[in-house]
């Protein structure tokens, strides 16, 4: 089960801007992983510092975030790598 909060948050934001609680629900839905509030905001802080996500203006009390171009590229590269590993692993399992 994928549990890297960085990839989970980026994957969630790749589907559209979200605030913390929405990210938590979305991640639980698509990955089956419930990130705790501390873990989620640890990832949000790190990703914002790295410039991979950014704050979005909102009239709402809750603060939404959006994935940036750099974040999208990082996510793409990581998922491509992961995909290669998954495919290789499955192929080897089938041939074993």
């Amino acid at each position, binding site marked *: 089960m994928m549990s890297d909060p960085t990839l989970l948050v980026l994957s969630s934001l790749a589907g559209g801007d979200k605030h913390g*609680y929405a990210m*938590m629900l979305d991640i639980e839905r698509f990955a089956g992983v419930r990130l*705790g*509030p501390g873990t989620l905001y640890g990832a949000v802080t790190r990703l914002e*510092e*790295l410039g991979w996500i950014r704050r979005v203006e909102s009239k709402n009390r809750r603060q939404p975030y959006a994935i940036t171009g750099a974040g999208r590229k990082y996510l793409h590269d990581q998922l491509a790598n992961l995909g290669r590993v998954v495919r290789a692993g499955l192929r080897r399992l089938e041939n074993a």
Partner: protein
Amino acid sequence: MKRIVRLLAWLYPSSWRKRYGTEFDDLLEDTTLSARDSFDVFWGALKMQMTTWTFGRITLACAVAGMLVAAVVSFVLPVHYLSQATLIVTPADESTRGLPNNLMERSIFNREVLASLIQAHSLYPRERTRVPLDVVIDKMKSNIQVVSILPASPGNGGTLTFAIRFDYPDRYVAQQINGELLTRLIEGNLHAQRDSHWTFYVPANPSLPAWPAPPNRTRFAAVGLFAGLLAGLTLAGVTKSRSSTIVLR
């Protein structure tokens, strides 16, 4: 639970709270929180503190924490009492000068003697249910101290003064067993008069300890400080290398 987690959220660095505090509190408000979440928030706060602290501050904090933990441990350790007797040993002539080590070994530290004492007085009941008697005997050995408190010198005719101590969780038993050990030593000397010529004098009978013997708190604190320092250096190294890796990426 929500209140506890909200309180734990205050452990985050103030600079972080200024930026994320409001939205984080909103998230806590929206979420159904569990005990696991309270640990998650506590751990998150700790990690966030680590990223804002300097190398020296992390090391110092860990060293102090280690010392405090060791101090707390030294206070919650089970109590034990130390009974002490004083024994003056005078050799009959110059030729028998020296420590009566054989006698000590035969009379006090002999495994059979200790085994009979353990069984006769039902000593170490908890240990005896868990480990073999041999291990219990070793434990008892470690609780007996024979310390030379006044060494022989030409001025005192080779007289030696010993403190015989026995350490046990019950003060009455500590005194009783120390008395038995002393008696065995004196009896051992009487039986071995042919090859040993010492006169024994007991100026102070085994004491009944009024207070538990304090653990060596200074040593505890020093060990805690050192362990904390090592842990702090490691943690600071890891934290700082991680943050520099992220910046470089």
